[in-house]
């Protein structure tokens, strides 16, 4: 009776559904879904974490619009994201593209990618100490090449340079992965196109600009949104390198939320910040999905 064969398998498998699904579902529901949903409720309350939460309606959200500290953290977050994109994208694109057909390409890629394996704290502290005005190695290099005025600057102690330093450390840590994304995208460009252009006498930059880039732009757009989502959540490098200082010049949304919750015990207000942050991430995610869908329709 060959017909009953798939039915038997199907019936047997159905018995797996509950025991196989339940462990993952329970843990996920309890430690992610439940807290995520509860945040929306907490955001509508005033709560010090000791007494019961008091219903506050939209008060936390109106307070957000008036909180100048919050709006400055938004500015800093945007500055971080834009500065980061300006350093990261050209760098990663360049590394990903030029290491493709090089003899030493694999060696270069390994060295560029290796910092990813370090923990964020290790990477952040390494750069924090490298630019330390008292014992930093960067300062002595600057002095050696005659840039004494720059060497005496406390790079992490000045509002004007601190954010740039955090951005550079963040990019140094993660650029290898973005290099791999771009390398993967560039490999999808048909080799014949590049060869035809090269035979016609185009320089490698011209090949990149006129053949590879138009095809890579689609991927770059998606990656830019991915970077924005990450930029909105930047946290560890700032805590480890500046802790939001000097004079709150590097305070971003994430570090502000952390301090509002766990230093000032204003949990309702912190939850409201989390809701706003989530909304921004949601918009960016939907945007990227729309872009990729349209992209796949074209092919």
């Amino acid at each position, binding site marked *: 009776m060959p017909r009953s064969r798939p039915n038997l398998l199907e019936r047997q498998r159905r018995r797996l559904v509950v025991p196989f699904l339940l462990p*993952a579902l329970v843990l996920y529901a309890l430690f992610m879904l439940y807290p995520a949903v509860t945040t929306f409720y907490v955001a509508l309350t005033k709560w010090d974490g000791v007494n019961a939460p008091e219903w506050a309606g939209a008060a936390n959200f109106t307070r957000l619009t008036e909180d100048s500290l919050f709006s400055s953290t938004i500015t800093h977050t945007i500055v971080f994201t834009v500065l980061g994109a300006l350093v990261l994208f050209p760098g990663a694109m360049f590394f990903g593209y*030029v290491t493709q*057909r090089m003899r030493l390409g694999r060696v270069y890629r390994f060295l560029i990618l290796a910092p990813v394996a370090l*923990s964020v*704290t*290790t990477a952040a502290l390494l750069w924090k100490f490298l630019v330390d005005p008292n014992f930093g190695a960067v300062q*002595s290099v600057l002095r050696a090449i005659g840039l004494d005025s720059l060497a005496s600057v406390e790079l992490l102690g000045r509002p004007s340079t601190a954010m740039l330093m955090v951005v550079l450390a963040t990019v140094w840590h993660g650029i290898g992965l973005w290099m791999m994304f771009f390398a993967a995208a560039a490999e999808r460009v048909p080799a014949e196109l590049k060869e035809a252009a090269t035979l016609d006498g185009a320089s490698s930059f011209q090949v990149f600009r006129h053949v590879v880039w138009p095809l890579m732009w689609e991927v770059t757009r998606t990656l830019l949104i991915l970077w924005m989502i990450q930029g909105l959540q930047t946290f*560890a490098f700032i805590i480890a390198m500046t802790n939001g200082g000097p004079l709150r010049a590097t305070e971003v949304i994430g570090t502000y939320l952390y301090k509002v*919750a766990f230093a000032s015990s204003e949990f309702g207000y912190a939850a409201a*910040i989390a809701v706003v942050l989530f909304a921004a991430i949601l918009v960016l995610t939907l945007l990227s999905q729309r872009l990729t869908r349209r992209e796949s329709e074209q092919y």
Partner: protein
Amino acid sequence: MTTPTATPPAVAAAPPPAPSPPRRRPPVRPGRMLSHLALVSYCLTSVSAFVWCVMVSLKTNPEFFSSSPWSLPQDPQFGNYAEAWNGAQISRFFLNSLYVTVTSVGVSLLFAVMAAYVLARVDFPGKSVVRLVFLSGLMMPAFLVIVPLYFLLRNLGLLGSLHGLVLVYIATQIPFSIYLLSSFFQSLPKELEEAACMDGASPTRTFFSVVLPQVSPAVASVALLNTLTIWNEFFFALVFLTDPQQQTIPVGLLGLSVNAQYSANWVQLFAGLVITMIPMLILFAFAQDRIARGVSVGALKG
């Protein structure tokens, strides 16, 4: 990643028995030289940052402050490492990180593989809802869950304990693991499972002895990615682990760096930094391709 080295130009592939053999490599162009120059200087900076860290870790504290940052240690102090490992509790952080990573990656992977299998292979009512619920976890930032999660752990008596952190880590890894694994299950042929079923194997048995071996490469990739993520996780660990005895490496190191500012025992901190770098760099050296491939799949399709 395919090796970028072995792609000769198409011209060289054609067999031209001409008197002057075609040139295999293009002449050195200024653009190429500049590329090499940029790559070499960037990589040199990275490597020297690491070398500097190792050199400092072998100095004495007075030497660290008096000598030039780039000078070699006069008398390498390997004792700094022993001191960091025992005295500064790096060993403690290390074991904590190891425990948290191994248990949470292992357990979450087991649960995720089981759930992904059912989601990919079995039809049951409400399946699309369940899948959506899991996938929604992909866009939940840690910030969204942190406040209620903190109180949940406190009420369960798990705040400050590594076990609580393990539970949270298991949950956070589940959506991404299910997402990657279920697409992999869908690409597997069904014949082997049907044959096992005909031979009278129970579905559980079929799963563990027929299905799992087939997906082990994918499971290994996911395990590697999750290991990297959890080993380096900072935010949850910072919020939940308040007791220095119960901290993982990323948070513990931060505490050490704050202490070093008061005790001025910098060399010990640097030895600690180097100790935490070594195992991940070794793991990375062996698994570079797999990590890079897995990450790009996760990012580009997600």
